[in-house]
């Protein structure tokens, strides 16, 4: 589904990713761990199409297409979804309007009928329970004044509505209490299928108790220095990153 080959990327002349190789197949869950500043969010943002990062060499192919050629919106249309580490507040735009517009753009690109307000609300009612997001948040401005946990749940709620093929969760577990963590993980698991894949960026092994990864990668100073099974996460938890240097 996703093939990253020898990816180098920099921002403002500073090289952040220094040769990443990663392959994700349909149905798989990959976890990416690594110390602060190692480049996890950079990788996630490049996959979503953020333009500030300059890809200096390497390639990314997604469902057989050159991903780097696509605009962020085109990537979303083709099923890529990034749950932001820091979801953006957008005053003046209601959450429902935003999400309906987004869903209809995705549907349009796939040749599907747009949903009207009533149809959309029906869908929303179903999905909102999945992440137990307070309904009153729907009519508020996107993420404005949301608590940290509410923002993260809102990301997963959007994911539930948009039903992506490749979801990239950038520290969605940070700032969640244990109940919220379970709810979010359940949300992710119930959306899992043999046709889609998930990349989970996290610092904590505990999330991986709920979202069980097929592969765990350690990203260190812009490189994947180790990959392994889910035991690797436990090992990192007890030993830290020093032994990998």
């Amino acid at each position, binding site marked *: 589904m996703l093939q990253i080959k020898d990816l180098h990327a920099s921002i403002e002349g500073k090289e952040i990713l220094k040769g990443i190789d990663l392959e994700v197949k349909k149905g798989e869950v990959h976890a990416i761990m690594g110390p602060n500043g190692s480049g996890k969010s950079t990788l996630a943002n490049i996959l979503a199409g953020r333009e500030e990062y300059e890809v200096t060499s390497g390639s990314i192919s997604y469902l057989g297409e050159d991903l780097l050629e696509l605009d962020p919106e085109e*990537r979303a249309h083709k099923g890529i979804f990034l749950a*932001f580490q820091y*979801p*953006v507040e957008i005053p003046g735009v209601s959450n429902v309007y935003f*999400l309906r517009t987004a869903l209809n*753009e*995705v549907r349009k690109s796939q040749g599907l009928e747009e949903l009207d307000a009533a149809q959309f609300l029906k869908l929303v009612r179903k999905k909102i329970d999945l992440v137990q997001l307070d309904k009153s948040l729907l009519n508020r401005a996107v993420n404005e004044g949301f608590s940290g946990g509410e923002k993260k749940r809102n990301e997963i709620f959007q994911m539930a509505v948009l039903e992506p093929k490749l979801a990239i969760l950038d520290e969605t577990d940070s700032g969640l209490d244990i109940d919220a963590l379970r709810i979010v993980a359940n949300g992710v698991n119930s959306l899992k299928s043999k046709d889609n894949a998930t990349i989970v960026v996290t610092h904590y092994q505990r999330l991986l108790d709920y979202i069980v990864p097929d592969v765990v990668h350690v990203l260190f100073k812009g490189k994947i220095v180790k990959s392994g099974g889910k035991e690797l996460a436990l090992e990192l938890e007890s030993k830290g990153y020093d032994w990998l240097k």
Partner: protein
Amino acid sequence: MQNEIKHYLDQFERFHNGSAGQAVHALRKKALREFEQEGFPTTRQEEWRFTNIRPLAQTPFMVSGSAQLEQAEMDTFLFTDWQKPLIVMVNGRFDRALSRNWQDIPGVDIIPLKQVLDEDKTLFNAYLTKIVQDHETVFSRLNSAFMHDGVCLHINNMVHVQEEIHIVHVMKGGEKPLAAYPRNLIIAGKGSEACLIETFHSSGTGVTFTDMVSEVFVGENARLKHYRIQNESAEAFHVSNTAVSQKDNSNYKSVTFTFGGRLVRNNISTALNGQGIESTLNGLYMGGDKQLIDNHTFIDHARAHCDSHELYRGILRDNARAVFSGKILVRPDAQKTDAKQSNNCLLLSDEARVDTKPQLEIYADDVKCTHGATVGQLDEEAAFYLRARGIPRHKATGILTYAFAEEIIAAIEVAEVRDTVHALLADRLGHEIDFTEV
């Protein structure tokens, strides 16, 4: 500048030929003399530092005669299914044939200004020039010199006007540059309530100049809402001079929307001549191409316990320019004043530019005055967030631009005004967003 002034002196002779007998003629002549002495301002004058009016001053505008408008074209300027009072002004003249439902509003007298001037009506003579005289500019003088017709609206004491009153101003261009000098006199009696909507449109092509004066008197405990939507063509020059006088416990709210026009200058001055007054001046403008949109406000806190609120938001594209100058004067007697001013501008292109100038003059010690000004580009973080969810770039820009304007739009109490502003924004942003659902 000599020739430019002489042009107006000649126009004056020609236009007012034969009306020297009227009482108003003395007022006109006085105004003309003052105009002649003062001349057109240059950018060396502080009040005009950012607004070069040479293109206006150098165009030899002829005072427009009466112009005809087809009903079909007229209909395009109206709100859908509008059955409420409607007054139509064409090239500065009250058009009785196109106006409707304005003569039988209980407790309200609406009279064409021409009739007031011709018949020397005492009520209006008591007010004419009395409010604007403390806030004269060269353009208000020019209007006084050429005043001829307009709308006199008198709301009697304690009358609550249920229906909003819509005044449509149409400026029909011709082969030569045409000018009109409409004049409003609006008197809201004690304890009255009303809502006035003015919209400005162009018909056909041709360079036009509207130089307008509105004198507004808001009596004790009266509440007046005043919406204006400027949507003239890219060939239109427009200067509006609004002078407001408020009495004890009155409430005046003005919302000025500027979308059209090549050069638009809106001067609004409110004098808070009493206690317990509330005054709100809001504005939203959106400029593109080479438009210049200039909003000058002045709030004069003369007495104690008054609140004023100002919120102006602007959106500029292409090479558009804007000016915002907000002066707040708090006189020594105006203790417990609460004055809030904020103006924000969103620049959607690198070539667009805004000059802002807050001016606070405070001579009382127990007051609360705040002001804030921001100029910024589109929030790229937010744009990326929207795009990452599948919303195309141009639509993301539209949504964020709309969000920027939302605070002002959300405060519009009249559905027709809100819909019109939505439509104009969607049109200017050039795509299919239906803002009514946002």
